[in-house]
């Protein structure tokens, strides 16, 4: 006979990633609960996820001491059931969101304790542009769907305590007080858990305090660019000519280009931008957020500071980098740090130094039988040694040859035709102009990556932008679609779907792709 249930079984769902100590966490909870005299059951699904990927653990216990149960035993479930989970512990934001998506986080019942940091999934990481999942909705879902949501950066705390995230999660659980277990009990269990006990305890306490003091770790902001090197003259010009909303990007650009070549070169940037800024003002950019100016400036600066071997050598020998590497490697002051660079310059890198004529001759020679790769020389430079440093700095010093080089001439041609197109498109329609400017996003990287990006850029300009312009039609939408397609896969399949001439044409048999 179904009695009116006095106590419900208490369900705890743990969502973690392989190697984050989810199993240890489950065992701690089971031990604590069982030592408190409750009937408890746990299970897990390591499955294929034993190595990486998501794993789940599910714990249920009956919050009435076994001693009071007589010969009765509660029925404990092996799988979580939507609406009947009391606590969800998630070691990462998207894993937390996944439990919400599956309906395990119930507004009437579930307390969600999760780390707000991101561990990116392979699909997000491997994207050619920005493939990351928007954390806004993820956070919103966690906060709105949970009876109580406790989210903070546990990864930071785990690092601080020199432990893994599981102990911080347990601290968070203890802090919320939703389980009828004394926090001291958890501490006791952790203390008896062997070698890493000390670090685990530290992690536990950090998590516990974070919840009880409502203190949450803040995520670091993007560094503000150092513009100390920008000359007063250029600053004045920028402030005089540009709308205030666009000046942050403008200043960043000037700083970058001064650093890249010199003040004169940075001035060239302002000259090139002048007609764009004028156009933007004519087109009522104020209502459009000055996006033609902002986006064109952004990419113009990046393209004018293309990464040639001199630039790379310079970036790799800056003082700030040596300090960053030490911090990143968590090296103690007493510990020497050695840095080995993986450089492999080839003909095209050489052409970033050689004059145009010689460059063309050289490239024709090496590309004749399509084995340019053979002409790349591997250099494993030790930039922490004096000779290594000097080698790199000598390379960097070759920037004097930059402006007469084959590469510089090519970039100049590309930049100027692109700028002209942005103006034409902007004249037709504001958004069209912005989209064409944005297309410069495709041109990045080195070697094949750079060439592939350039080809995609060109085919969009020729096949979509040019026809639209000659017809005086707004091609904004088509350009945006083509650009997204170009960033969809590195084999150009998606783009080929829009622009047949671009990318490979796939043969199929019975609808199946032949590769």
């Amino acid at each position, binding site marked *: 006979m179904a009695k009116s249930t006095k106590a419900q079984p208490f369900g705890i769902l743990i969502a973690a990633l*392989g190697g984050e100590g989810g199993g240890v966490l489950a065992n701690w909870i089971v031990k604590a609960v069982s030592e408190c005299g409750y009937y408890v059951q746990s299970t897990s699904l390591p*499955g294929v996820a034993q*190595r990486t990927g998501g794993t789940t653990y599910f714990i249920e216990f009956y919050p009435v001491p076994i001693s009071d149960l007589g010969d009765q035993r509660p029925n404990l479930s092996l799988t979580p059931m939507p609406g009947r989970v009391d606590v969800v512990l998630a070691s990462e934001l998207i894993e937390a969101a996944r439990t*919400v998506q599956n309906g395990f986080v119930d507004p009437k019942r579930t307390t969600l304790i999760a780390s707000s940091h991101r561990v990116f999934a392979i699909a997000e990481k491997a994207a050619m542009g920005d493939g990351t999942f928007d954390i806004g*909705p993820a956070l919103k879902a966690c906060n709105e*769907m949970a009876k109580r949501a406790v989210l903070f950066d546990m990864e930071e705390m785990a690092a601080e305590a020199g432990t893994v995230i599981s102990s911080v999660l347990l601290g968070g659980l203890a802090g919320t007080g939703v389980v009828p277990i004394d926090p001291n009990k958890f501490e006791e269990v952790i203390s008896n858990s062997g070698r890493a006990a000390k670090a685990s305890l530290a992690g536990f306490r950090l998590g516990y305090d974070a919840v009880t003091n409502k203190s949450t770790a803040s995520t670091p902001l993007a560094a503000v660019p150092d513009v100390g090197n920008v000359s007063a003259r250029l600053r004045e010009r920028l402030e005089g000519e540009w709308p205030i909303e666009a000046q942050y990007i403008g200043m960043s650009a000037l700083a970058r280009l001064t650093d890249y070549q010199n003040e004169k070169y940075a001035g060239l940037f302002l000259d090139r931008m002048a007609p764009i800024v004028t156009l933007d003002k004519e087109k009522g950019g104020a209502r459009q957020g000055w996006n033609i100016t902002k986006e064109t400036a952004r990419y113009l600066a990046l393209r004018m500071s293309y990464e040639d071997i001199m*630039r790379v050598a310079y970036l790799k020998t800056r003082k700030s980098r040596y300090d960053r590497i030490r911090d990143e490697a968590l090296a103690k002051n007493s510990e020497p740090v050695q840095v080995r660079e993986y450089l492999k310059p080839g003909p095209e890198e050489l052409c970033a130094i050689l004059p145009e004529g010689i460059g063309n001759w050289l490239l024709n020679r090496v590309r004749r039988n399509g084995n340019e790769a053979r002409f790349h020389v591997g250099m494993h430079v030790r930039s922490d040694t004096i000779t290594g440093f000097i080698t790199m700095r000598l390379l960097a010093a070759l920037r004097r040859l930059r402006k007469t080089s084959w590469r510089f001439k090519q970039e100049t041609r590309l930049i100027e035709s692109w700028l002209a197109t942005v103006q034409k498109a902007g004249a037709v329609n504001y958004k069209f102009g912005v989209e064409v400017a944005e297309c410069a996003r495709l041109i990045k990287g*080195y070697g094949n990556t750079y060439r592939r990006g350039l080809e995609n850029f060109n085919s969009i300009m020729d096949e979509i932008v040019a026809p639209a312009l000659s017809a005086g039609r707004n091609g904004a939408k088509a350009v945006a679609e083509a650009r997204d397609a170009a960033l969809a896969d590195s084999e150009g399949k998606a783009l080929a779907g829009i622009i047949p001439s671009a990318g490979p044409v796939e043969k199929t048999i019975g609808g199946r792709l032949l590769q």
Partner: protein
Amino acid sequence: MPERSFAKEVKQLRIGTGEVFEGEGILAVTKGLLQSGISYVGGYQGAPISHLTDVLSDAQDILGELGIHLETCANEAGAVAMLGASINYPIRGAVTFKSIVGTNVASDALSNLASPGVTGGALIVLGEDYGEGSSIIQERTHAIAMKSQVWLLDPKPDLTTIVDLTEKAFELSEATNTPVLMELRARVCHMSGRFEARDNVAAEHSLNNKIETPHFDLNHISLPPGTYIQEKLKVDVRWPAAIKFIKENKLNEFHKGKIRDTGIILQGGMYNGVVRALQAFGLADEFGNSDIPLLVLNVVYPLVPDELKKFCKDKKAVLIVEEGQPKFMEHEIKSLVLDTGMKTKISGSDVMLMAGELNGEAMLRGISAFFKKHRSKDIQIAPVARAVKEMDNVQAKAAEILGEPVPLRPPGFCTGCPERPIFAAIKLVEEQIGKVHISADIGCHTFAALAPFNLGNTVLGYGLGLASSTGLSSMMSRKVVSMMGDGGFWHNGLTTGVANHVFNQDDGVLIVVSNGYSSATGHQHIPSTGTNSRDQETGMEIETALRGVGVKSVERVETYNIAKMMSTLKSAITTKKKGLKVIIAEGECRLALQRREKPKIAAALSDGKRVERVRFGVDEESCTGDHACIRLSGCPTLTIKESSDPLRKDPVTQVTNGCVGCGNCGEVAHAAILCPSFYRTTIVQNPKFMDRVLYSVRRTVIGWMQRGEMA
């Protein structure tokens, strides 16, 4: 030594009658075996049952005391063949492996065991890898039990029931001269719980008391006329005996409920889920007392007609809760009810999930659909409907807020995995010579078929990578590249694949991924590990075995050497020379390596010895955010972050502190000429005097040359 040690847990295997055992499902089964007086035990690792073999090898002294022989079998067929010991002799034995794949491999031996039948009890403990988190094709073991006519137990997920049934299984096996299968699903294998133990039992015949005289009985041989007699015995003698035993020993459970006209018949393994759903509907209490009568089948094959008739009689509708398909039980019960002329409606596949695990959600939806379809005046439908409606609302709202489904997190290679560079090399070679057909195999390396590599066109089963290429190899303009792990190589790949390839003088390339262990299942030892599970030297080598079966072209390549891997692979694929070219890709599983090295390094550090720590890094300033390096790696520690450059929109690549400095990312970026952003950092811990002098000199001089720059 396997990944996980049970040295501590196995102590509990000694406890006796009255004491309470607390632990995992697989440990409970092991205890059940010891309480049943087995003489021998063996198995082949595979999730979710891998740890059972680990537990056994960790419990060798206990096995020794009881005179139990432990065998690490070559594969599942070998494991079942081992049970042949029980055909002629009154000795009990048990083996374990994963199902369905393992059972498929074993099915020839199983038929030849089932037909003559057994004298001593024979139990096969199966890890039923069906449903969420499974690593294999989705099929039920039930069909195998039916066609070989061996009994199938599906115990209620509760350690007491599991242990009792383990003991009963041997009695059933002996009472019916039939081997018995016991299926345990993944969640049950990993389930923690408690049960009251009994004393271990030493077998009459064991290592301590050997059998004197061999026994011969022509009717125990799988040859006519024996086979015809055996087939008759199955139906005339063994089947009725099984029905009788199951009834008399009440292996199946009748749960009475106050509602008369409706009932549920379920596999034992489904019990907790069914009751939880009934609780959600207010039809059961927290102790599992249900208003709906339940027939819990701890034995799902054979079914006991009398029990089923008794349960279905006078009921309007009965639901069959049976996981997966085909719905063998449902069909059998339907026809039984039909034959007896009962009016009872048998429901099952019409309301329950046909394919996939019956998890919490599936139970809620299925059982509520049953109650809605077959209304009972005694069941209030409102709370039933509400439970499902609330779930729907929550899921709908969540989906609405999230906008799009959150990204999937497929499994991949671990940080520092020595298999990663193999597939990076294949991708890079493909860029030079065009795509090749990859005939993949089972093992960690199968993950290469997933993002980011997507290398692997077919997977036909364990050790079958090379065999599955033979139909195609002669039809492909470019040579087919077959994969095989060292586990699969010894499981059957050496004969089924390599020997036969040489025998037929086929053409192709085989990459044997030699990481030293059966790694995906938890580092169980294999012949080429060098030692067996008892840590005895084996002196068996893959290359020797290959040459032994007549392979002419064998190359050993250290996987992290991307350049060498690429050139070897390229020449193997492009060479005009016919025949099998084998590349042994060598690199010890990083997890095993770490487990062995970490303590040593820690010790060296505390002794003040000089230790170099290596990690890789990416220069944010020169990274342009194309992530080609990630598409050639997928390393967990090679990830992305928001660029701190206000001009860059795309996230840049970074290496996190989990990096173990294997060098794959740097080498690949180098070999693929991707970009100059990668660098290798060596941190000298406990530096010697000269280290410090040299370093400070370098710092000073370089610092002087950098003067004037902002830090």
